[in-house]
């Protein structure tokens, strides 16, 4: 039998038999080379209570080349692209070793959620947010977990309504008062949110950005 197939089948079977761990690996279709991995958000983090799905593609010369992984579930995290789910993690690149497995790699992703590395970001905007105000970042990450990963609602955040309309301001990790301030000038709310998010109009950073700069961006 093809060594790659044998190895992947064994990895899938091992994962099924392990009832201890929250990590699961499922087939997308009949192919064992395109999979979906899932794991629970780590306890004591803003991702707690969420279930995160990862798209897994097994390359032709697996395990000699690293497996390709990206988040399907949207994650608010400095090392994960908030747009594409792309992940910046060394073992998915040059630190890959053929002895690593799908499961061990998923566990590494899980621990990546525990320990963000904002100095080596994948998503610069999210990383800025993290560096500017960790508590505001965590609120946003928690909100994303609730909206996208089925995490628990939290009072004061998104009015606790899981199925309800999304709170775009909370999604962007912004202050309601700030958004209202520029909305009052006649700009569209979505546009205001977009600009303030990009400018990292949060916490102590607000003092560094004058209103003219914001308006200039809004006019573009």
């Amino acid at each position, binding site marked *: 039998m093809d*060594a790659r197939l*044998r*190895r992947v089948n*064994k990895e899938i079977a091992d994962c099924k038999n392990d009832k201890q761990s929250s990590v699961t690996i499922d087939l997308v279709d009949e192919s064992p080379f395109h999979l979906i991995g899932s794991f629970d958000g780590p306890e004591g983090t803003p991702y707690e209570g969420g279930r995160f799905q990862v798209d897994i593609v097994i390359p032709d*010369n697996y*395990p*000699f*080349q690293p497996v*390709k992984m*990206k988040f399907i579930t949207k994650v608010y995290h400095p090392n994960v*692209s908030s*747009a*594409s*789910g*792309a*992940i*910046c993690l*060394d*073992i*998915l*690149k*040059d*630190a890959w*070793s*053929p*002895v*690593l*497995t799908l*499961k*061990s*790699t998923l*566990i*590494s992703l899980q*621990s*990546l959620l525990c*320990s963000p*590395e*904002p*100095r*080596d*970001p*994948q*998503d*610069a*905007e999210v*990383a*800025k947010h993290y*560096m500017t105000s960790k508590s505001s970042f965590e609120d946003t990450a928690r909100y994303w977990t609730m909206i996208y990963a089925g995490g628990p609602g939290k009072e004061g955040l998104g009015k606790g309504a899981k199925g309800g309309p999304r709170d775009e301001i909370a999604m962007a990790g912004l202050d309601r008062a700030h958004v209202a301030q520029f909305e009052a000038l006649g700009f569209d709310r979505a546009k205001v949110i977009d600009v303030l998010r*990009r400018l990292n109009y949060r916490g102590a950073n607000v003092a560094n950005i004058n209103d003219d700069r914001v308006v200039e961006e809004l006019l*573009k």
Partner: protein
Amino acid sequence: MSSDYEISDDENYSYEEEEEEDEMEVEDYDDGSASEIEVDGIGDDFKVPGGSERKVYEVDYMSLSQPDVEKIMATDVNYISGIFGVEPAVAAQLLRHMNWNKEKLTDKYMDNASQVSVAAGVDLPPREPTPPPPKASSSRQSSTGPTRTARRSVAETSKTSKSTKRVASPAAGVQSFVCPICFDDSQTETMALMCEHRFCSSCWKEYITSKVRTEAECTITCMAEDCNIVALDPFVKKALTDDMETWERYQELLVRQFVSCIPHLKFCPYPSCTNTVSCVSAATKSSLLTMVPIVACSIPTHVFCFGCPIDADHRPVICAVAKMWLQKCRDDSETANWIKSNTKECSKCQSTIEKNGGCNHMTCKKCKYEFCWVCMGPWSEHGTSWYSCNRYDEKASVDARDAQARSRASLERYLHYYNRWANHEQSAKLSMELYAKTEKKMEEMQITSELTWIQVQFMKKAVDVVFKCRMTLKWTYAMAYYLSLGNEKELFEDNQRDLERAVEELSELIEAPIDPETIMALRQKVTDKTVYVQKRNEIMLEDTAKGYLDGRWSWNATVDGL
């Protein structure tokens, strides 16, 4: 060739010593091989006064075959093997690790042999839990720091490493070895490096094949996680068994690695060519400000620049200015397309890098430079000064505004040069068609006249010369764009105009229909014109080359290195 070359072998490849080596080689190889571009058998008709001496716009160089380079490498390996008292394979890996700097290797090895050996992957780290020696070869270790390592160790790797240990003894011959990679328990052949991380032979073979063929990697570390032990050449050969193709590719990669470490060597950039060119006089960055080192490997059509990644003759403009111009053309035409494209040049060492997956954190394979795919800025800056790169790029938007504000005049100025540049490039491309047409014409001429095949070669020669001179002209426009206004520039443009006029006239002559009555006159005309065009081209190249040496050219933009 190679035996002459060995004279310099025992010297170190560091810069200072190179100078002396230089002269030796210049004497040996000043055979004018660089100028053999004449079409065989008819060169005599077209001799331009000046003889076979090296022209001021030419550079001395020599072509080395892969075995030639391997011989040089072997000399270094034997030398190190001898003085360190280690196996040649170990010496080779130590040299590769130290980028073939024998002096530095000797110093470091004498200072602390064990540390160097561990870092080079030829020895196991000491057993005591002393802090591990800095792994200078790996940039990721230093950039990601201990957090990443910690993160990884959280992962389920203990299981796999345990299983490796468990099987280490059965593998010695007893029973039921389960390869920790393919999970196959029926494999009987196993292999392990000195670290005793044992895997089945077929996994080793696949792993090495993948490293060599997919990643073009010639430093092959153990498959176990975090194990730095390197598979030495005999191990690689044994693991590849009968796969000669991969073994040969591996050897080519070794030669490439060596060549890339030696400033006066460059690998021929033409696809599937394995020749190397040695060019001592163009080995320093500063030398490239006063010369354009156009060379060719032993295959005469493999013409390339020794000083930059341009795979063509870009005389008369120096590398740094040629690069600026090409960059400008790219930025001004299809910036967006360019950014979307999937390969880029490393902004540090210029090797081509392919994007792999969605992550924007790129590490250059060759020089280990870390940068951002989106903005091409150093990755370190994203960590500290936070200039953004995804979706929103302050710098890019400022540039865009600047671009809009740029005066119409400067755009028109650029277009003036660009259109002429593009026109010569286009015409030169069309000369392929012209070739076919000329062939037909030459057949016709043989039928309608008394001329022999050799005698009708003047047409082909004329097409060659037109092509070559259009290339010169093309680059003169890049040069003129950056030349400061003044007398010198005017003289430059006079030469340019004379050459251009001559080329267009010759071009017209070759494309005109043939009248059997006047064929002898045509032959004379074309031959004379060809000689004249060559002469104009000589003047153009000679004058610019002298201008560099005299420091006559001044630029209207900041040139890299000046």
